[in-house]
């Protein structure tokens, strides 16, 4: 038979084409939406030329001048920072403790930790809403809907992510360094502070950034636990105005959101992958480690 023999290992061409088509389908609409934030006219669906008016050009309606938009941006970041600040230490400690715990309570504790991850966010939102509005006993009655409630809700939803990330890192680090530290005379707290935390540091930073990204993107819980306009976040604002007559400044606002979350998650991945190189363990890529959410 004359001609090039077909490589038996090569995939059918349609698979490759299909994959790239999917990628285009997934990403192009978002790119278009971002593009429209630079539209010259008021339309969000018809291109009318390039302009920066919706970003800062227009003195009243552009992203950085419109009080509603800037407030949503500020509130989003406020919630994200608070979420990071609370969920990360809680989650790291939980991960460390759960990793060591062999007793009988450890399985239910592990399951409890995973509940926010596997429950639809709507169920969590409804439960928390009822908690803060119906329960008359002290810690909950003190919390009204608004920023505090939103932070509590977001932390609860983010917590499992921190635990999973830190625990998978702990698993790949292993017990040897703590044992070595202990062998050399370090008390449990010293071993934690001097050996384990430095080794975990990249995973902790990565989980912090992931929490930031999750918080910025969070919608359901944040909306359910909000009180009024002042507690609106970017996703809430986008939701409220997508079907309205909003200007492309809305696209600009959404673009800021996309930019911040992609940045945070990108840096998180970079930090995690970089740290992998230091602790010399054979095999396994960072993606494989992070996606090994063995439930």
């Amino acid at each position, binding site marked *: 038979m004359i001609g090039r023999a077909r490589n038996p290992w090569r*995939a059918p061409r349609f*698979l*490759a084409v*299909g994959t790239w088509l*999917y*990628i285009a389908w*997934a*990403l192009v*609409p*978002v790119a*278009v*939406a971002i593009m*429209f934030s630079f539209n010259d006219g008021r339309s*969000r*669906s*018809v291109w009318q030329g390039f302009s920066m008016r919706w970003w800062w050009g227009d003195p009243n309606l552009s992203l950085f001048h419109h009080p509603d938009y800037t407030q949503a941006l500020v509130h989003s970041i406020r919630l994200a920072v608070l979420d990071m600040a609370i969920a990360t230490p*809680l*989650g790291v*400690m*939980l991960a*460390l*403790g759960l990793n*060591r*715990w062999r007793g009988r309570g450890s399985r239910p504790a592990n399951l*409890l*930790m995973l509940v926010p991850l*596997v429950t*639809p*966010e*709507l*169920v*969590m939102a*409804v*439960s928390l*809403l*009822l*908690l803060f509005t*119906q329960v008359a006993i002290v810690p909950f009655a003190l919390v009204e809907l608004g920023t505090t409630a939103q932070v509590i809700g977001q*932390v*609860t939803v983010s*917590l499992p992510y921190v635990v999973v990330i830190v625990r998978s890192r702990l698993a790949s680090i292993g017990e040897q360094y703590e044992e070595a530290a202990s062998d050399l005379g370090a008390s449990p707290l010293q071993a934690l502070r001097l050996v384990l935390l430095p080794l975990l540091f990249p995973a902790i930073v990565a989980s912090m950034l992931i929490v930031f990204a999750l918080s910025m*993107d969070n*919608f*359901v819980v944040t909306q359910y636990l909000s009180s009024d306009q002042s507690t609106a976040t970017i*996703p809430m604002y*986008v*939701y409220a105005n*997508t*079907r309205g007559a909003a200007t492309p400044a809305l*696209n600009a606002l*959404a673009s800021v*959101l*996309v930019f911040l*979350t*992609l940045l945070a998650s990108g840096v998180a991945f970079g930090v995690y992958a970089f740290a992998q190189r230091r602790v010399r363990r054979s095999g396994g890529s960072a*993606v*494989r480690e992070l*996606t090994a*959410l063995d*439930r």
Partner: protein
Amino acid sequence: MMYSRWYWRALVSPGLAWLGLFVLVPTYALVAVATGRIDELYRPIPAWNPAKWNVGFIREAFAAAVPGGAYWPTVRNTLLYVGAALTLCIVIGYPVAYYIARHARRTKALLVLLIVIPFWVSYLMRMLAWVGLLSPDGYVNQVLAAVGITQPPDWLGGYPLPVILALTYGYIPFFILPVYAGLDRIDRNLLDAGRDLGASPLRNFLHVTLPLSRPSLLAGCVLVVLPMFGDYYTNELISRSPRTSMLGNQVTLFMLGGPQKNRGAALVIVMMAILLLAMTYYVVATARDRARAA
């Protein structure tokens, strides 16, 4: 044991306390409200004591959720849309995950990056994008007009198909990633062994790859079905019509739209019952897989 018991107890306490306060107690509050009563202003009176539980609302909700009941159209919509969207996710997502895991060589890292990106782009941004594209003067209709279709469908007018497509679009990254991870983890040697024993590429796929990817396939389905069940925002953005209302819309209507919190809580319980059925299937299926592998 290396460390004394209170070492890890101290570490675990704050997190567990948080989870107890903000996961367990709210769940109980949900049940209490669903089994409670209402006062003259239609505000809920939660029944904290199980002895005083009133199953009236729950019974009503279950009765309304079956064919013929008040919620049935909503339940039917939910089951239909989720089922259709899940099917689309599998049909589109599995081949993509398969290609990237098993066949992409030089482009693999780039492709992985590209499928991770939508995972992080806010759901609402992606819906915003489609609302822009699907609006009467948007690009979709422009393209259709260019090929001669001058009477395009009313995309955003409240029809099931756009909702299903939007759900698929929104949640498919949650499906592709775990499936990709599972496929990527399959030992190449197993496939080589299959070829060595005379299997064609297709048979290799059907008898080696597919069974081995079953756990991650199931995981991907779960990761997609769970949030879809609670979805209400896709409908609100793409459809805006009660015609395509899903369970999530009905719940949100009760919870945020007026004094019907008991009904809302009861409906959430119905929703969780349906989900529990799906989850039981998942647990049984994976347990069976594990037993067979042992």
